């Protein structure tokens, strides 16, 4: 079983669109939406039989006011400015649940409470099982939820004997992205030819290099700026990242998105559909050559 994570650095380059269309072509796989901050894959794949489970990993310091003597030690030791300087109340947004105040409180007035981080869904799509999640608004620790979604999808694939787990990642280079690529066999970058898209690709590619994961790339909307597309191609060559295809800027793809449809399914002869099919073949070839 192989795991591929699709990421981009920059948001809105087309990760989810590519993942959804590829899942139609792969046809028999396990899907994971690790963009728990803004999960969208379910909007294109309409999963059914959602069974939801609460995921708890956030911790929060909670004060027992009857024991508190207002000594202020919690305020002194907290490095996250989560303790108010006058009332010594805990700010739930700022508290990172590290437990330092709990350990240092001489009156045992503080405890760490486990909170809901979000919900995890085990669903079914036309192309196989899908694991996704929703993060509680304002919740910390999305990294742990991402890891859980990724793990659950892998376990499912193992159990059902599926060959592939396709993971939709999140934008950026920080904690959720790192959690979504941990232990995967391959990363697929979806980038776009804009100065910011290119710069963000380089930053996220450095992260992937750091973790030593082989990577492939797709340039989406490549004809918006062919000069930058060329620069991206040269960069990919230098970095030994295989370019598996380019997708043209087309209102057809925007239209199908608006109607929550998959373009490869709806119109097989469409130019964009052909481009995506080409990408799918290239990825398949690379998957076969992975050890």
């Amino acid at each position, binding site marked *: 079983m192989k795991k591929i994570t699709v990421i981009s650095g920059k*948001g809105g380059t087309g990760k989810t669109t590519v993942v959804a269309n590829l899942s139609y072509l792969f046809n028999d796989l396990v899907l994971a939406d690790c963009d728990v901050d803004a999960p*969208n894959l379910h909007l294109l794949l309409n999963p059914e039989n959602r069974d939801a489970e609460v995921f708890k990993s956030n911790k929060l310091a909670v004060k027992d006011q009857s024991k508190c003597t207002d000594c202020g030690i919690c305020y002194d030791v907290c*490095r996250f400015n989560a303790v108010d300087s006058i009332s010594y109340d805990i700010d739930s947004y700022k508290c990172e649940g590290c437990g330092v105040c709990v*350990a240092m409180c001489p009156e045992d007035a503080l405890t760490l409470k486990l909170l809901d981080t979000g919900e995890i869904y085990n669903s079914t799509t036309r192309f196989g099982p899908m694991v996704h999640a929703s993060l509680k608004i304002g919740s910390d620790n999305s990294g742990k939820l991402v890891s859980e979604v990724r793990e659950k999808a892998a376990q499912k694939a193992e159990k059902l004997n599926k060959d592939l787990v396709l993971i939709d990642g*999140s934008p950026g*280079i920080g904690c959720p992205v790192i959690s979504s690529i941990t232990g995967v066999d391959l990363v697929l970058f979806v980038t776009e030819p*804009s*100065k910011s898209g290119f710069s963000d690709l380089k930053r996220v590619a450095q992260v992937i290099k750091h973790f030593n994961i082989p990577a492939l790339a797709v340039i989406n909307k490549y004809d918006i700026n062919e000069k930058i597309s060329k620069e991206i191609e040269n960069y990919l060559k230098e970095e030994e990242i295989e370019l598996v295809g380019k997708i043209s800027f087309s209102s057809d793809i*925007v239209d199908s*998105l608006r109607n929550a449809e998959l373009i490869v399914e709806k119109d097989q002869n469409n130019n964009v559909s052909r481009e995506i099919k080409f990408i799918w073949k290239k990825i398949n070839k690379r998957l076969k050559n992975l050890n």
Partner: protein
Amino acid sequence: MKITVLSGKGGTGKTTVSVNLALSIENVQLLDADVEEPNLQYFLHPIFDKEESIYRKIPEVDQQKCTSCRKCVDFCEYNALSMMIDEVLVFPEICHSCGGCKLICPENAITETDRELGVLKHAKSEYNVDFWQGELNIGEESSVPVIEALKKKIDPDKDIIIDAQPGTTCPTIEAVVDSDYGLLVTEPTPFGLSDLKLAAKLMDELKIPYGVIINRAEKDSNYIIEDYCNINDIDILLRIPFKRKYAQLYSEGIPFVQKEKELKNHFRKVFKQVRSVVDEKNHSN
């Protein structure tokens, strides 16, 4: 007045809105708080004149003093410490720098060293915008301390525009939490709508007034965003049309208002409308 530009979904046009708004008004300071992928620089062409490192503290274990009691390993909520036979190993990337292990160690075997987490850069950009950018170092996981440090650069004599990270978790919250107003940028797709709802929920929870800017709006497209905003009584401040030309300008890093002066008036109107909402709120408080 402090305005934060945010969105649930990435790539909807936060940076576009931030830069075009900043170039349409006077006496403004622009902060790039999307520290994982700071992109305002590609529109402002800044020549940076100041640079400051942001550090965080990482524990260091003196193996001579360590008695392998495991107290630090058991204490760490983030599993950033682990016991390898009889030595404590530190994983700096996962460490949240809470300082707990150092306080807990009965042998005083733990000290802390500084590790660079990111940098802040300042420039007076070519469009005469006072510009600060936060940048998270590659391989680091936590953006929040960089955003916190960035916000210390706020000039109280100016109007502030903050470009936030996409999403609804800690880095976005840190950027927006003490703002007077949130500009929510979205696009008329099911993705845009779904993520707008999350961002709106966050703003409701934080009790910050907000309005919506629809990017890539098409004349004859569906009105899913408009319908949602109407039902929920949310102001729509601006529609930026879907044009191939805009996509090309964006790709080159050219602010739209430089090419279409008329758009400047639209952004000025947005700013005026935001100001009146904020003034009204301050008045009633």
